[in-house]
């Protein structure tokens, strides 16, 4: 198997689903224009499936469109997309029986520079955690040992701050990371609110820090590590390392990994008197999570 064989099988699968009327729409990929090597593709007829693209440039995340297309849609889901679907199911945003998931065994996506796409560098998942139909890549696909791109935080507090501020200087506060993020689907984002007003109107590094820290906190235990925030950022801001640390923190504290089991209650939507409270002022101190 290869991408090409997988593509042919995907076309076949989607064609049949549309022909048999089991779905009215397939969310897939098409050849991109200009800089883009792939682009989302809304497939509605069996004939259109022939134009479908599937290769290592299809790094875009499609599951967010499911929040608009609630009924009768099928989606080509990489493991990261499937993790987002699990999150949406766990958070009651979509209904499982109205959706067809065509899972793809994922060989990892590449960016414009030919290196692993943001989100793919660290990912060991090859099979989506949830699917109706699985289209395999075939023999010979092994999780390659890849270099860690999104490294974790420096130990020293001063180092953390300097690094964070340096990243923030690049940000232009266009909010494209928020729009692309699977976890950011609030109808009214905290940063858009007037009462209370969270965003200082003088757009200095401080204002950018407010937005990114606020967003990161909202993603604690929810980020499915798809890398979309970084992929869409026009100014190349690295923000994932921050969320990644929070994810590890959340897993160590509550043993919860987002996007794995739709039946499991998300860590931040439940409360237990026995929960560890290291995140709170005056709470116990946990060296496993916070370092020394």
């Amino acid at each position, binding site marked *: 198997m290869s991408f090409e064989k997988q593509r042919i099988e995907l076309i076949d699968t989607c064609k049949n689903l549309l022909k048999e009327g089991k779905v009215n729409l397939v969310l897939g990929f098409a050849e991109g224009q200009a800089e883009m090597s*792939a682009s989302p593709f*809304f497939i509605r007829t069996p004939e259109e499936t022939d134009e479908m693209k599937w290769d290592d440039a299809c790094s875009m995340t499609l599951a967010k469109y499911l929040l608009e297309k609630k009924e009768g849609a099928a989606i080509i889901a990489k493991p990261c997309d499937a993790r987002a679907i699990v999150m949406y199911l766990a958070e009651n945003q979509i209904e499982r029986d109205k959706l067809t998931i065509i899972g793809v065994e994922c060989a990892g996506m590449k960016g414009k520079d030919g290196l692993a796409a943001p989100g793919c560098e660290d990912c060991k998942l090859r099979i989506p955690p949830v699917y109706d139909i699985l289209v395999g890549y075939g023999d010979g696909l092994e999780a390659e040992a890849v270099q860690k791109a999104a490294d974790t935080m420096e130990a020293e507090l001063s180092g953390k701050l300097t690094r964070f501020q340096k990243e923030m200087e690049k940000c232009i506060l*266009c909010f494209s990371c*928020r*729009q*692309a993020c699977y976890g950011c689907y609030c109808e009214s984002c905290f940063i858009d609110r007037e009462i209370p007003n969270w965003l200082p109107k003088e757009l200095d590094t401080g204002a950018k820090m407010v937005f990114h820290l606020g967003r990161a906190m909202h993603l604690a235990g929810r980020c499915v590590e798809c890398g979309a925030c970084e992929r*869409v950022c*026009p100014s190349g801001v690295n923000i994932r390392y921050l969320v990644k640390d929070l994810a590890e923190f959340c897993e160590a504290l509550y043993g919860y990994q987002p996007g794995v089991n739709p039946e499991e209650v998300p860590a931040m939507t439940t409360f237990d008197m026995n929960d560890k409270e290291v995140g709170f002022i005056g709470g116990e101190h946990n060296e496993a999570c916070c370092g020394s």
Partner: protein
Amino acid sequence: MKHVVVPKDSIKDLLESLMTDYKIVAPVREGQTLVYKAVNQVDEVILNDEAAYKSPKEFLFPQTEQMMVFSKDGDIRITEDDTKTILFGVRSCDLEALKIMTAVFTQGKFIDTYFEKKLKNTVLIGFGCQSEKKGCFCGDRGLNKGYSEACDAFLTDNGDQYIVQIITEKGELLFGGFAQIDSQKAVSCESGGQALLEINSDESTLFNNVDWGRISEKCMGCGTCTYICPTCHCFVFKDVVEKGEAIRYKCWDSCMYPKFTMHASGHNPRASKKERYRQRILHKYLYVKQNFGYTACTGCGRCIRSCPVGMNIKSVVTEIMEGLK
């Protein structure tokens, strides 16, 4: 028109000497990207054939601009900014865009005095493109990538020297001292030709006979296009109470955001991305043309290059016109 020759080695010395009187804004490298920034050291300036990922509009129309301060005793202080700026290395597409923005902010009944003043204090130095970048379509929009008159002086790369066309007195002040050459031998200064990419139709036809829902289906509404676009100029006023005073800011806004047209009643006339995307296209290709005589898209290609889902304004406009034939 006067042409002078500036050896490449002299450009940095020239900028260095101007730094005492002017804030110099030029393309510099930030990480892997190229951006227009206020320069601290002239060595940072990068004059090659790359395109900056966002336009330099923020130096005339800042992302947030303090306008005035109200104090409790009823005193109003207008915020003054007299900084003299040189916008250096600006491409034809961005110069054309500033021309459009100048029309919007300084023509007609309402004058934006903040923009007007900044423009007066700014020297625009153009710089020709040698190649078209991916996504660029300034030719289809009737521009010449290698030359524009919408500036004070225009630089053209010519081996180990720049040929500079001096267009205004401000340009003469900067480059007047260099050796003049025969205009006949200088580079071509044609301002481009007929724009091929236009929407020639009326609003009602465009509203009713174009399938905006399908066209905008992929759009995530992230607004990146409006932030990096050289002609997008929508803004909003915000009054912020800080330290016992109220400060009024003029901030960028984006028609791609759901709250852009939200009414106090809760009604939103542009409730979905379909209406919002239609507004973006028609503002550029219809409304500004109706009001000021320009099509507000210069083919810089930035929105095409930066769109995370591959929306392409050129194909969209082409498709609309094909569909209406």
